[in-house]
């Protein structure tokens, strides 16, 4: 019962933000944003607590204040030209969302089966990084600044953001779950974010396509078990994929509300893991490229990109400022070894070739690339340009990640073995999203007036 209360309270925190979208007539986006806004409302007071008197002991009150503050932020994001909105195609929607409900139920039941009464199978990193934070946050009266400065823990990645531990600590404190029982919370978290992704796309894509995109992360081998191992990478995939797909679809359809929703999801990605900042950069680049490919002027495309990036940049800056105030050792980018780029290129290339050479990955990514080209429509050059715009975000993410790997302060081989598959979990779903948005982009061009199409 207390777990249900914790879940309901988390989702209730998203309601003020959802109400803003609801009032603009975007009910599907309002509902879809509930878990995202609720998670941000829980995370921001923790991240900013050193600036707010230090206490984190009054979570519900502080989170409620943050939730109310998110509503005007969403309102500000929605300012500007009204979005181009079409009526949702509801045919088949009930069946597609019934499938998603079954997936969500399966995730909750799996979490329930793995929790208290059995061995949860938490991964060592998941246990020692994310669950440690969850436990510290659940028990502490204030953010433990001493831990951030403790020289025995300089490599403890205390600069990692707090969205996942904040959610788990919420379930521990309000829901009464102990450390070993948090698999149930992990199941509930995934069960809320996955259908939200599809719901947000209901006006942009047919229901089965939106549902396919929401299910796609779970088709990535190892992702679900890694999620239940209490790693943050799978959750990052869910929120970053929502951010990319929503902002990309919004940029193509010149739908301000969808871009704003994508921006809030990307802020969640930034608050989940350092790689979230890379997804923010990638999705913003993709949104600008897609807005241009859909016929927007350069100024309009840049404005779309700015709207897409703004909440994530604010979250990133706020957390970095907090880390600086607490004196946390900054593992990135202060310790990056750019002098080793050339020497390590061969090693990274071999690792990537081995990773992408596995038949299942090669087939999936190849199929997505071919589908993107096939579905983008138009002549050869137009088709290539559209495919490039659609695939810009995954390409920027892969490029940025490769650069970080090349400059890692750790031994590269160890870093690749321990993290490469996890950090690339989101690549195939993002490429699938690019392919599935191809017809939307092709349609956007074909509906432009002739005068607009003839512009250089």
């Amino acid at each position, binding site marked *: 019962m207390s777990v249900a209360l914790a879940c309901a309270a988390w989702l209730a925190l998203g309601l003020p933000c959802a109400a803003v979208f609801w009032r603009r007539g975007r009910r599907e986006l309002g509902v879809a944003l509930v878990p995202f806004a609720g998670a941000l409302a829980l995370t921001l007071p923790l991240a900013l607590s050193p600036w707010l008197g230090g206490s984190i002991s009054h979570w519900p009150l502080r989170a409620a204040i943050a939730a109310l503050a998110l509503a005007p932020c969403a309102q500000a994001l929605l300012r500007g030209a009204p979005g181009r909105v079409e009526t949702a195609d509801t045919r088949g929607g009930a069946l597609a969302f019934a499938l998603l409900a079954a997936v969500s139920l399966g995730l909750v039941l799996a979490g329930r089966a*793995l929790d208290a*009464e059995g061995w949860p199978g938490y991964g060592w990193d998941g246990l*020692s990084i994310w669950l440690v934070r969850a436990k510290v946050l659940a028990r502490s009266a204030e953010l433990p600044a001493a831990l951030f400065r*403790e020289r025995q823990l300089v490599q403890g990645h205390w600069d990692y953001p707090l969205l996942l531990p904040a959610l788990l600590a919420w379930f521990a404190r309000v829901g009464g779950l102990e*450390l070993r029982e948090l698999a149930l919370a992990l199941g509930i978290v995934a069960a809320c974010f996955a259908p939200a992704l599809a719901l947000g796309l209901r006006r942009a894509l047919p229901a*089965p396509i939106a549902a396919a995109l929401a299910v796609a992360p779970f088709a990535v081998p190892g992702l679900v078990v890694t999620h239940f191992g209490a790693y943050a990478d799978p959750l990052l995939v869910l929120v970053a994929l929502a951010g990319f797909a929503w902002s990309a679809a919004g940029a193509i359809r010149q739908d301000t509300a969808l871009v704003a929703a994508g921006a809030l999801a990307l802020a969640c990605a930034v608050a989940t893991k350092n790689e979230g900042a890379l997804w923010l950069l990638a999705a913003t680049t993709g949104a600008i490229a897609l807005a241009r490919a859909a016929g927007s002027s350069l100024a309009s495309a840049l404005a779309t990109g700015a709207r897409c990036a703004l909440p994530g940049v604010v979250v990133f800056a706020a957390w970095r400022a907090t880390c600086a105030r607490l004196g946390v050792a900054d593992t990135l980018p202060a310790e990056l070894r750019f002098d080793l780029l050339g020497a390590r290129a061969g090693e990274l290339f071999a690792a990537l070739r081995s990773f992408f050479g596995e038949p299942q990955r090669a087939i999936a990514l190849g199929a997505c690339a071919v589908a993107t080209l096939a579905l983008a429509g138009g002549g050869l050059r137009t088709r290539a340009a559209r495919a490039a715009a659609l695939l810009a975000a995954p390409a920027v993410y892969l490029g940025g990640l490769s650069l970080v790997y090349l400059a890692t302060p750790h031994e590269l081989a160890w870093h690749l073995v321990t993290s490469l598959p996890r950090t690339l979990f989101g690549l195939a779903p993002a490429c699938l999203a690019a392919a599935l948005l191809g017809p939307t982009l092709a349609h956007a061009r074909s509906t432009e007036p002739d005068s607009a199409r003839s512009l250089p």
Partner: protein
Amino acid sequence: MQPLERRGSHEIAAWLLLAAIAALAWRSTGDLRALVRDTAATRGALRSDADFYAAPPVLGDEIAILRHVERELAPGTPISVEGRGAYEERRQRFWLALLPEHPIAAGADWRICPAPCGGPGDTLVVQGREFVLLRRSTAETP
């Protein structure tokens, strides 16, 4: 008539895609279903976080150290958790979770470290499997 037919074929393609991805997801989550099956046998074995810490994949034989700290050291007593670089530090962070009442601090009188460790005059208090709990000698105390 033609647009309707095209729309129908698009709809069929969308459902086929969803079915294919759902089937792939079912296949890819076989490891989770296996994990749920494998843990079914131990269901009921872990009734508290204390049982959880004592389980072999977590602390195993190191649990003696945890028990001693919880029983014998007053809350607030600083403990130093030492290791040999990044790999050991993961364990240090885990001890941090286990000992929320005891601040982790370098140079503390009490230290948990991987055996063999410690200096002359340090007292061995508890022996775990890989780690030991030592009391630092007064001469060595910084």
